């Protein structure tokens, strides 16, 4: 059993209460940071940078660096936004994190806000997580009463309040800049930096957007130190733990907190209870729908941002979606494309028009109307997704590209057989 940090003391069917959280040493980091006169908020930024904390929302950007891009003389109010939109298919770790310990997130948010001197913190949460949203509202109230949220925290000059904002539902709202437009009551089309949100974000004021899991890590880094955090990982360059959302053809789908860099095979076999009876591992998406399929050759790969990146993949959100040998990946990819084509914000041409085009071609291949020329067409369109306005379209292209790279045989079989081999019984 690896050390549990974020999901420690996780209770079945209930959240950790404020008291329980405090007993575990919760809010100590916040207390110390705010009462220690010699501790400058900017030191939080340094600590997070040294600890190698990378954003857990998918982009793996170093949190300390992002914080440093808020200019010292930037205007106020400043905002800290917790991104709990979590609409990436396959991903559900943020829900579990909130429902495990809302106070862990609250403390992380206040600390992050303190690091950039933000007085308003907002939790942007998807509507499907109503239970989590209510739990948060309730616990924010408790934290406020306890003096962890509000004015002059711990008699310092620092004020911070937390607001919960419920989205009306769109995947693109989770994109850090589209989210800002959504919060401003505009259509959630992304914004193109520069200026970066940390300089001109919500209402053109400095805004730091951070994923739930990232924020949850912060109190632990402060409390236990940089070195401790680094040693949690088992990969060369990774740091901390990672909460993997495991789903698909495994016996025990669910959230598992494991060291950064744990092997995929270990996750599946030792934690997720192995493949379903009668299923063989065929592929896996390591980080949600917008990452590439990992083929069988990657079965023992280390689940770490750098390791996967070096091998040409992305860890994304750490949502391990497992596919078995009976699943048609052409059809699965078409299903993903339905999602992406439907959720495109409609701002830029490659994504708005190109994805439905790719979907049409995949559907044709699946339906037995595929032509050999479709393959280079799809490939080229996928590569063109890199020239879209935001990261949505390249993400949408990732599974398709990897389908063509690692499962070209399966695609070709569809074309040659003029139909889906899984449907016309060409597969056992």
């Amino acid at each position, binding site marked *: 059993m690896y050390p549990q940090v974020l999901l420690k003391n996780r209770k079945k069917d209930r959240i950790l209460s404020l008291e329980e959280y405090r007993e575990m040493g919760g809010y100590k980091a916040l207390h110390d940071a705010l009462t220690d006169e010699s501790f400058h908020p900017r030191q939080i930024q340094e600590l997070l940078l040294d600890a190698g904390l990378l954003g857990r929302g998918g982009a793996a950007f170093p949190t300390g660096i992002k914080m440093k891009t808020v200019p010292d003389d930037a205007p106020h109010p400043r905002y800290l936004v917790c991104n709990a939109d979590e609409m990436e298919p396959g991903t559900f770790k943020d829900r579990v994190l909130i429902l495990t310990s809302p106070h862990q997130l609250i403390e992380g948010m206040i600390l992050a806000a303190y690091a950039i001197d933000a007085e308003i913190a907002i939790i942007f949460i998807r509507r499907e997580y109503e239970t989590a949203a209510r739990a948060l509202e309730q616990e924010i109230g408790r934290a406020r009463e306890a003096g962890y949220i509000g004015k002059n925290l711990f008699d310092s000059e620092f004020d911070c309040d937390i607001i919960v904002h419920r989205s009306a539902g769109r995947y693109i709202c989770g994109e850090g800049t589209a989210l800002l437009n959504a919060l401003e009551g505009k259509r959630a089309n992304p914004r193109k930096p520069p200026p970066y949100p940390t300089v001109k974000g919500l209402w053109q004021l400095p805004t730091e957007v951070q994923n739930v899991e990232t924020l949850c890590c912060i109190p632990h880094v402060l409390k236990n130190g940089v070195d401790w955090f680094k040693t949690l990982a088992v990969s060369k360059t990774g740091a901390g733990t990672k909460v993997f959302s495991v789903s698909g053809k495994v016996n025990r789908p669910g959230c598992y907190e494991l060291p950064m860099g744990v092997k995929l095979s270990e996750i599946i076999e030792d934690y997720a209870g192995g493949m379903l009876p009668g299923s063989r591992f065929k592929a896996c998406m390591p980080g949600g729908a917008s990452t590439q399929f990992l083929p069988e050759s990657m079965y023992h790969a280390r689940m770490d941002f750098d390791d996967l990146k070096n091998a040409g993949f992305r860890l994304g959100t750490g949502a391990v979606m497992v596919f078995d040998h009976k699943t048609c990946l052409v059809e699965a990819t078409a299903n993903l494309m339905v999602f992406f084509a439907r959720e495109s914000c409609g701002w*830029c*041409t490659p994504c708005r028009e190109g994805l*439905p*085009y790719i979907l049409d071609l995949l559907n*044709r291949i699946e339906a037995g109307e595929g032509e050999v020329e479709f393959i280079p067409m799809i490939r080229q369109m996928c590569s063109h997704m890199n020239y*879209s306005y935001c990261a949505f379209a390249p993400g949408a292209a990732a599974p398709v590209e990897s389908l063509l790279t690692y499962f070209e045989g399966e695609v070709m079989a569809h074309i040659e057989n003029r139909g889906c081999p899984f449907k016309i019984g060409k597969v056992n």
Partner: protein
Amino acid sequence: MPKLIIDNREIEVPEGIKVIEAADRAGIYIPRFCYYAELGAVGACRICAVKFVDGPVKGIEMSCMINAQDGMVVSTTDPEARDFRRHVIEWLMMNHPHDCPVCDEGGHCLLQDLTESCDHGIRRYKGKKRTYVDQYLGPLIQHEENRCIQCYRCSRYYQEFAGYKDLGVMGIAQRIYFGRYAAGVLESPFSGNIIDLCPTGVYTDKPSRYTGRRWDYERVPGICINCSLGCHITVSARYREIVYLEGRYSGKVNGSFICDRGRYGFFYANLEERPRQGRVRGEDVPSGRAITMAAQRVKEVSESHGAAAIAVIGSGRSSLETIAALTHVCKVQGWRGPVLFDSRVSSESVRTAVSCIAQELAVSMKEIESADFILTVGADPINEAPMLAMAMRQAWRKGAGVAAIDCRSLDWPFQFEQVTAAPDDMADFLAALENSETTVISDRFVAQIKSIAAKIRACHRPVVVCGTEITDSKIIYGAAGFVKAMRQAGQEAGLFYTLPAANSYGAALLDEIGETAEDLIERIESGEIKALVIVESDLWDTFSDRQRLIQALEQLELLVVADFMATEILHRADIIIPTLSIFEAGGIYVNQEGRAQWSPPAYAGGTPIKITGQGGHPPRIIRPDIPAGDISPAWRMAWWLADRQPPASHDLLLDWMGKTFPVLEKAANFTSEGIRLYLPEARRKTARETGGRKIQSLGEYLLLPVAAVFGDEPMAQRSPCLEGYAKHPEMWMAASDARLFDASDGDAARLQLPYGPLELTLRLSERIAPGTLIVYRCPDLFWQQFARSSRFIVPKDRIRIEKKA
């Protein structure tokens, strides 16, 4: 200044511009859909992709999103970039209908052009096309949403640039829809620009639907004369009629856009009712014959009563050429006039404004966009000079504050602060702003005035916009004084007047006396004047006392009316002489900042084929001449009336004008942005020559007819497609006054005026100055019962309110 290389051409460009604009400057066209200079870059369509070969940015990027930087090497022809652009077109064409043959955009369609030039020729997509239901957007714009390529130009223009909220983008992903919440007439008086902006045929010009292709038209760069701003337009003519007008870029006046009054205000030129023949005592004669007959009759009157018994009336809707010719002819013949102003107040106001404008004070409309504070005094841009409101909005978008001193309930598409002041008080408020002398103004306003004064003092490029319709010469003079004072204090202050007509400025330049129609009527009544020649004047509509006008006209021995529109007064003439419109004769118009601009003729004139062909097919009657092609411009007619020979050509006319009138010395040297003409120092007014008059006393109401964007301006008023846009008769009253009458919004108001009752719907607002009643001029309202530019006092007991049922 960054230096970069685009397609092997080295260019140096100003800091901060995008690569696409840098390429434009180098004469290299990079495809674009979403990018439009005045709307800025948003990177949505992705068609402007180019390859950055070397320098600070590498790889394929959107040229509209990247600032031009030193050392960049850019290739627009790189195979990878071209391949991507071809795909972008393919994507856009997935759903675009192939209805070019029946699409009015065909032939000047950006999508057509770029589909060709980006080399997308063969359809590969096998799926179905997405379709939409179109919306009725009013009589001006046809909607065909299936053609949309989602460039977002229209919604961005409509909401962000223009500030209106009834057209935008709905839906998401591939189901995006551009239109209104519900079908209905677009609310913005600047809506027509989406026709010009849309890169495909989603919005096309409705009145000209299915009349032709761009290459069928005679197209010239023109000037709009539907208000005093003189926006630049492109005129398209075919079959002897004007088909449509578009906005034309001017870096000094209007930028790219125009208002709907200007865009659709040209139909007077096509109307069947237009005079196209001479008429002498009820009989049609060729136009030349009518002129000779008129000259003959004028001569007779002159012989029997003396030259001073003949008077000429002109107007600010005539070209500078016509005004100059009339001025010259009156002078040499000893006739009175030309009288170019309807009322004394208007004459005073316009001539004061023109005498105050000077090179160093005047700002162009485009310069207003970079003002950091704008103060308006008695000016309502939306209604008096629509595009000015757009320029002010752009300044406001960049952070400029806007304050207005006015008695109306102003309604502009941006935020501003209004100081509600009665016309009589506006001068005091202006003075208070200038010198912080607040003793003369009511205590209620002191704090507000002080705060505005502080804001104005704190800014660098304030502009004072002053109207000439509800103001008096003291305010107009004061506005210039304020600007001068600010300039002396080191601010780059600017002055901007609005004037009543397209050539009011030109009229004031040439008119040294400022005699008015009011004065002339008196002379007719006294028998001093026996013959009147009215040239292109709207006196019938604009003269404040119609009964008196009718009686005066009946007293005349001779009434000659020359016009290109069928005004009411024309029908009362002994002799009618048709003249040419700006589209046929061309003309110089001097806008309100003193910019003289030349609008060339768009076609040779003559009765439209639609009329002569009477619906037959083919519509032509083959004949060697142009039907009604013998009409002369009014300036030629002026000389002939005096039995003299006009200059033989327009060029010679310009020469002659420059030599004859010192203020027009530069008139022959036109550039595309026009030339600026100012009064010489000696002809400028002094403070002593201006005055304000307190005309209102307690318990009286000042009834003020004011301008409306539609239904008021004499030319645009004749456009059939604009009929529904005119306001309904309404009277605005201060909410505090309404309490005295126990009146509420929507009640019926009945005014007992000298010539009978006037019925209007009552509208209330906190921002109407107490004691003032505002009436927007509109065709349904017989407002000639009171003065147009002067004012009318209504005692309280003449106002009756009937409660709304």
